[in-house]
């Protein structure tokens, strides 16, 4: 008799679980109905305002604008794009497995990565920089960062650069997201947030932060943002062509102004295709 009760209880759990999954699969299909036939999957960041940010209205940012423009040139409308989150550690594998056609996600071209994937572009030249509170006056050059409290994302290249080269004596805090660093910066528990100036400008451009932060303008490294494609893909040439057109018809400059403008970010001119600055 007791067994029956246990069975009944497990049946309830099972039913709950099944109904939960049933709802799940129904919802998932809704997204892909419109657009008619072919789709293109593009990898972007979901949590970097100004570059790739998930918002209640959809996706926004410079990487997103570039990706949209390139997709259009490849023959896909906006509603045919399937946006996917590609975290930094995941980017190479996503391309190799063919989960996405291309990735525009603050993807710096480096020799190690070029062994695994191909890059179109670069489409933006960024530099490692610092974000400071607007009233900060004691940090004027990278060497001033020594003995200051610095923050960056756990394990990132920027964090390693600080530690190894730029300011070995800096007090470095690492967090999983830039947002966590930023809240420390606001609380004055941290003096500077370091990563690519484009990412910093994206944050500083947010409406909530208007006038609160400024960029250091140190240009500590060169980061050549490229569009990652699968090794040997014929997309590379097509994307390169699209990027050239984007610069030529002024859309590139417009996208830069729209996404980084409010932060007073002095962007580099559009890089030439294939011109990777080390």
């Amino acid at each position, binding site marked *: *008799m*007791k*067994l029956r*009760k*246990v069975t009944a*209880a*497990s049946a309830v*759990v*099972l039913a*709950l*679980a*099944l109904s*939960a*999954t049933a*709802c*799940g699969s129904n*919802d*998932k299909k809704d997204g892909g109905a419109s657009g008619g036939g072919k789709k293109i*999957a593009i990898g972007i960041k*979901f*949590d*970097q*305002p100004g570059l790739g*940010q*998930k*918002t*209640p209205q959809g996706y926004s940012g410079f990487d997103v604008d570039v990706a949209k423009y390139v997709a259009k040139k490849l023959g896909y409308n906006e509603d045919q794009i399937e946006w*996917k*989150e*590609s*975290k930094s*550690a*995941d980017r190479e*594998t*996503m391309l190799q*497995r*063919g*989960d*996405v056609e291309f990735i525009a996600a603050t993807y710096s071209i480096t020799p190690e990565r070029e062994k695994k994937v191909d890059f179109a572009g670069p489409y933006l030249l960024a530099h490692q920089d610092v974000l400071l509170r607007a009233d900060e006056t004691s940090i004027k050059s990278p060497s001033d960062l020594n003995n200051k409290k610095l923050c960056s994302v756990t394990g990132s290249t920027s964090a390693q650069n600080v530690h190894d080269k730029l300011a070995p004596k800096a007090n470095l805090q690492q967090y*999983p*997201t*830039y*947002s*966590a660093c*930023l*809240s420390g910066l*606001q*609380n*004055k528990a941290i003096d500077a947030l370091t990563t690519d100036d484009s990412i910093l400008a994206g*944050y500083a451009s*947010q*409406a*909530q*932060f208007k006038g609160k932060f400024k960029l250091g303008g140190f240009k500590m490294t060169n980061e050549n943002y490229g569009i990652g494609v699968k090794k040997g893909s014929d997309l590379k040439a097509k994307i390169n062509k699209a990027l050239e057109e984007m610069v030529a018809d002024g859309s590139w400059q417009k996208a830069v102004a729209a996404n980084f403008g409010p932060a007073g970010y002095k962007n580099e001119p559009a890089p030439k295709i294939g011109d990777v600055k080390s």
Partner: protein
Amino acid sequence: MTSVLYDAQGPRAKRRNVLYTVVFLVALAALLWWVYKSLDDKGQLDWEKWKPFVGSEAWTTYILPGLKNTLIAAALSMVIALPLGAVFGIARLSDHAWIRVPAAVVVEFFRAIPVLILMIFGNALFAQYSNVTSDDRPLYAVVTGLVLYNASVLAEIVRAGILALPKGQTEAAHAIGLRKTQTMTSILLPQAVTAMLPAIVSQLVVIVKDTALGGAILTFPELLAAVSPMSSYYGANVIASFTVVAVIYVVLNFSLTSFASWLEQRLRRGKKSTGAVLAPAAVGGTESAGTVV
């Protein structure tokens, strides 16, 4: 409330308790006031940081889709891991070495490896050897990792539960002519599962929390992973976002444990006459501390 551990309290002890309570409450109030003050000084309580959670936008864009994925992954993992855990738990008690030893190896192996790494492997396996679409792959990988790890922990719980039953149960079952399988399925397992319910439930809570690992590295869009794009969109309201999400987790897991203790009481009520039921806590300590990797 009486206990065998101490005597009934006299008037002096009662007065002392009242004093303790007052002192504690004053200290708590002071602490809360200080925390409130510091948060306020640093602007963490600004309306701007909390406003998003009053409207529906933040919920429909970030939190609810995340919560849905957390629930799906957790429910699937529980439904698969529970029977699998029971099977392995029983297999480790088998009389045949060729069943017992491999089961022990499997259980010990998967218990020792961080769940996160199991998930990464699962993800790679599905990518390499199956045609699961890239949309579903994180879910599959998360469920695989959770099932492998939690089934082996549950196996240990079930085994401990069966071993802790009075010997008389097995002997009586054999005496009335039940086979080994019958003894297991109709005598031992039901009692063991009922007795181990508290431990099993804490493992289920662990499953709910561990879905968050999938968000950390496999881009499985679950509840905790929703904090990242959410807090970056709403102006780095990290503390506010994490607080809201933490409250959701507490409510979710607390209702799970409450449901389980209700279920446990129901199951136990009809059993008073048999006298074969263990005190729940006698064996209930097998829970693991919510492995997060």
